[in-house]
């Protein structure tokens, strides 16, 4: 397993405990100005603790995607500091960026699957390119695909899968080396409501293992019904940061049932969906 190995490599003990205490994501006065003068983010301050499930919402162009890209250092902040697990990632040398990304799983609206590889190979690819051993790949890939409910479609190609199934493959790929943080940028943007709930339920399940999950979406209804922490961006500023509790201890199944009930889909609304993803969940 990759995770304990990483921990053992990580410096002396006091530093490790400090890293454990630090929030997984911490932004201080983060500003991003694109060349041309457009200000995408304007002095953002926020902190996300370990194990949280957070929604990042806001209209198109409010800076959500910029923020996500900054967290994986696809973009550099113009000003301010971005800290992941207590480390200023703006100060990371080029060489360490790859290591940062190994600790962050990413899921995107367009899945980003490789069309000429099978489901199994797509997920295995994520482990291959970070130099995982063959034994590790043989152990982790089937386990993760079982977690996302695709253990019967290992040898299918992405174009033989439904949209929801493809997104599950993408989630499996993001989670296969068990990163402490998963970022999902509009994971249900291309999917119908029931399939979307399935994906959310999957992300919730991953969150239950202790992984911090940040979901970017513009689906206000979904967010309001889920009753998790919501950070809303508007024109580059945080305009709302609410933590609403009450459901933190619910099981994945309860979560799914409640979501269906609140969004008016599910048991009685099954007819309007392809039924695919939703059935496999239970």
């Amino acid at each position, binding site marked *: 397993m990759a995770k304990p190995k990483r921990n053992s490599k990580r410096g002396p003990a006091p530093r490790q405990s400090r890293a454990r205490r630090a929030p997984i994501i911490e932004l201080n006065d983060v500003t991003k100005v694109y060349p041309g003068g457009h200000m995408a983010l304007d002095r953002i301050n926020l902190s996300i603790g370990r194990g949280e499930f957070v929604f990042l919402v806001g209209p198109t162009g409010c800076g959500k995607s910029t923020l996500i890209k900054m967290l*994986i250092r696809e973009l550099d902040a113009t000003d301010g500091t971005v800290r992941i697990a207590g480390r200023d990632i703006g100060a990371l040398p*080029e*060489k360490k960026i*790859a*290591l*940062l*990304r*190994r*600790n962050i799983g*990413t899921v995107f609206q367009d899945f*980003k699957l*490789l*069309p000429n590889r099978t489901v199994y190979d797509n997920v295995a*690819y*994520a482990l*291959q*390119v*970070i*130099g995982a*051993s*063959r034994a590790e790949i043989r152990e982790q890939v089937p386990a993760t695909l079982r977690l996302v409910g695709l253990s019967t479609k290992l040898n299918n190609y992405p174009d033989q899968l439904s949209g929801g199934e493809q997104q599950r493959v993408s989630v499996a*790929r*993001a989670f296969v*080396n068990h990163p402490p943080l998963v970022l999902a940028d509009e994971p249900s943007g291309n999917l119908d409501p029931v399939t979307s709930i399935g994906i959310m339920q999957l992300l919730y399940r991953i969150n239950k293992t202790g992984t911090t999950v940040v979901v970017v979406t513009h689906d206000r209804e979904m967010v309001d019904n889920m009753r998790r922490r919501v950070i809303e961006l508007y024109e580059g500023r945080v305009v709302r940061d609410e933590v609403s509790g009450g459901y933190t201890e619910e099981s994945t199944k309860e979560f799914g049932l409640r979501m269906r009930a609140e969004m008016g889909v599910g048991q009685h609304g099954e007819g309007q969906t392809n039924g695919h993803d939703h059935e496999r969940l239970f």
Partner: protein
Amino acid sequence: MSRLIFFFKEAIRALRRNGAPTLAAIVTTVVTVVLLGVLIPVFQTAQGKSDSIRDELHAEYSIYDDATKAERQQLRGELEAIPHVDRVVYVTKAEALERLRDLVTDKSIADNLNSNPLPASFEVYADDAANLPGIKATVFPNGSDGKPFNPIVAKEFAEGDGSGETIEQVTGALKVVLTVITALLVLASLMLVGNTIRLSIYTRRREVEVMRLVGATRWFIRWPFMIEGVIVGFAGGLVAILILWLGKITIVDPLSDKFKLLAAQDNVGFPTLIVVLFAASILVSTIGSGLTLRRFLKV
């Protein structure tokens, strides 16, 4: 080890997907290497030939029969003292007759001579053919009809006047033309390998994106592309050397008995040539892919 297998698998997968441009790059490499393989020996043979001709170029001065041994020694010293003189060879009257006998087909002409009419002479070799006129001007300061610098010198035998410069010019022109052709060919293969890699970057942009997202290191992403370049160079070099070898055993070897120019190719050394060409083709394609990666693969 499993990484190396992964890199090769990825590279071969990419090459297969870009069949046509890959083939174009390999064929260009083949053409370049074959032409180089032909041009290098031709170039070396021409150079060797002109060197040997230039080696034979010399001035020859006959001396009067009544010159004493001391006078001859003095003249030798004076000739050797002229700048750019490489060596001075004394040819006795008997040796001169012997040479004549070799030259003529009717041996009886030499045998029928009552006495040896040929003079003894000094052959003066220059360190470079281009310096020969200067030496001649020193021995005969006022032209070959004027007075020589030493009274025992009788006459200058005319020997290839100006041919030194002509050979110099021809070899020089040959050098320039071949260098330009070689440079253009190397450039063409460099660009075609680069183009193949560029297409490969384009067709594999999703893989690259995914690799970056899941945290593959920069060199992990680059290696398959580099290996693609090496494979193109290797394949091109291999085919070219096969063609050259076939050409050697079917065309050059049978003819080399009849043509001295072809036989002179032996001084190039076929195994050395193969190693050099093979290394060059791999090097060129590696450079081609490396440069393309620097420009087009942003990781």
